[in-house]
């Protein structure tokens, strides 16, 4: 059986945005309760996102209500309707919770996600493989999956359930191991675990450079060794590469999403572009926006460097 990749007919450099409710560069709500893109987000969408060949937006729950597409459409219609038709759109999910046991019922969420896909024409959905919540309780950063045989079996079942239910491919993303918050439990190496999860579910995947480095860093690797063992990843299944701001702080690796890309991320990107035959999308994730809807200086510098780094790879 061949892997179901998204349809993207040429190589693409794009931008992905986390969109929290109530944040200055996310969704805004006026005094009457009406939602819309914040002014900074609306400007960025018009001036920058619309010029990209692809873009992703993240979904986060709007409120404590039962899922209802109509609650989201005022703001989402405004944002996605402002993008040029040429922009391929994707959805970064935050609630599929692919590492969680069957006590987590995705049925309503998958129906809702398909409704979003149908309305906004998303070409793919992606989510980091991990615990985004535990028994219904929120976490500050997704926990990696349980790196055991049981954890792998559960993850594969969950991924297959989502692949079957979603009307577009799910890109399974390698999880991050940030700060002191990533509880690593189990004997599997995360590269091997991820490869098995992706191959057994026959899924396309996303490789996030910061997340990959965070695992290698946490395992004590430094220098060139950060880029070793890439053959243990499901390189043939990689469709998308993410780059989001990251840094080290002493012995800690911070998946900071602050717009500043590390030199090591560009080195790893070059390795992956050479070795992933099916990669079609490179995405700068979470540039930091100013109040007037431009990338801040740090993010703009990273973005310029990324454009240069992929120039030869792009058509």
């Amino acid at each position: 059986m061949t892997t179901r990749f998204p349809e993207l007919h040429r190589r693409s450099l794009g931008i992905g945005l986390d969109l929290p409710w109530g944040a200055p560069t996310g969704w805004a709500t006026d005094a009457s309760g009406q939602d819309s893109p914040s002014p900074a987000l609306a400007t960025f969408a018009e001036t920058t996102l619309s010029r990209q060949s692809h873009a992703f937006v993240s979904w986060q729950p709007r409120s404590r209500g039962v899922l209802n597409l109509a609650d989201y459409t005022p703001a989402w219609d405004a944002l996605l309707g402002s993008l040029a038709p040429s922009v391929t759109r994707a959805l970064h999910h935050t609630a599929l919770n692919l590492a969680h046991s069957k006590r987590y019922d995705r049925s309503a969420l998958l129906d809702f996600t398909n409704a979003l896909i149908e309305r906004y024409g998303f070409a793919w959905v992606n989510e980091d493989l991990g615990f985004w919540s535990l028994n219904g309780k929120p976490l500050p950063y997704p926990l990696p999956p349980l790196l055991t045989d049981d954890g792998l079996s559960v993850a594969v079942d969950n991924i297959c359930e989502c692949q079957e239910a979603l009307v577009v491919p799910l890109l399974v993303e390698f999880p991050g191991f940030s700060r002191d918050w990533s509880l690593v439990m189990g004997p599997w190496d995360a590269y091997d675990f991820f490869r098995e999860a992706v191959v057994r579910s026959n899924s396309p995947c996303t490789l996030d450079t910061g997340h990959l480095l965070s695992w290698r860093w946490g395992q004590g690797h430094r220098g060139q060794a950060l880029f070793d063992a890439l053959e243990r990843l499901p390189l043939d299944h990689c469709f998308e590469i993410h780059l989001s701001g990251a840094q080290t702080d002493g012995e800690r690796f911070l998946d900071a999403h602050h717009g500043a890309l590390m030199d090591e991320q560009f080195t790893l990107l070059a390795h992956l572009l050479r070795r992933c035959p099916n990669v079609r999308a490179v995405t700068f994730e979470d540039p930091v926006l100013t109040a007037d809807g431009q990338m801040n200086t740090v993010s703009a510098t990273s973005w310029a460097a990324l454009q240069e780094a992929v120039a030869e790879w792009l058509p």
Partner: protein
Amino acid sequence: MSAQDAVAAVEDALVAVLFNVDQRQKLHNGDDLGLSSQLAADLRTPSRCDVDALADEICTRLTQRANRGVGRLQNAFPKTIAACTQASGEAPLFEAFLASPESAPWMPVPFAGLGPCLEQCFADWATQQPWADDDVVLHELLTAVCRALATDPTPAFVPPTAFRGQPGHWVAVTIGASPTVFAAVQGKVVTGPITPLIAGLLQGQSDADLAVAFGVPEPRVAMTRQAVVQKGLLQSTEPTDR
């Protein structure tokens, strides 16, 4: 044990140690948490993870968690939190709440089941504390939940039992010396003092029972019921036992 059950057991253990400081201490003491020795060792090994750092962050995020229409716990329970601060200085209020059995049912991500809202769990915990004024806690709780239900008429949580009604029409009543209504009707919040007779109507008592209880003619009760319906606090002129 199936793979599902094995992962579920780890989820339970993780929730225990991350959300309950007492369970976390048991982990550090080497007590049995229902995990395999290898997984328990993984959790205790500082080079691989830091349970305390993650738990601290969870508690910090709880204090910063703003629910649409209500805001943070500090916004919803200002008098209750002030009473705690006055009684015990800078006590670790939210850490103690998270460690309590009253916080356990809170599950705001609704796909693992519906539970009570954060405000109810907090109120349930606060009323167990010696510094709390139960009437104040109840008033702050009902006010906050009223706003939550006006914002989300079809909530993905179980409203406090004080609230009667259905999506889009929620009413709670406190009785006693000064009966008060807390209602979320068609997206609007309606709160304020009411008469004991209106309280009885909102609690679903029949006109005949209320006429006897208050010593007034039944037609007068019916007229009052009609006025309450017109204000939107009752959905029909028929009494309901919901």
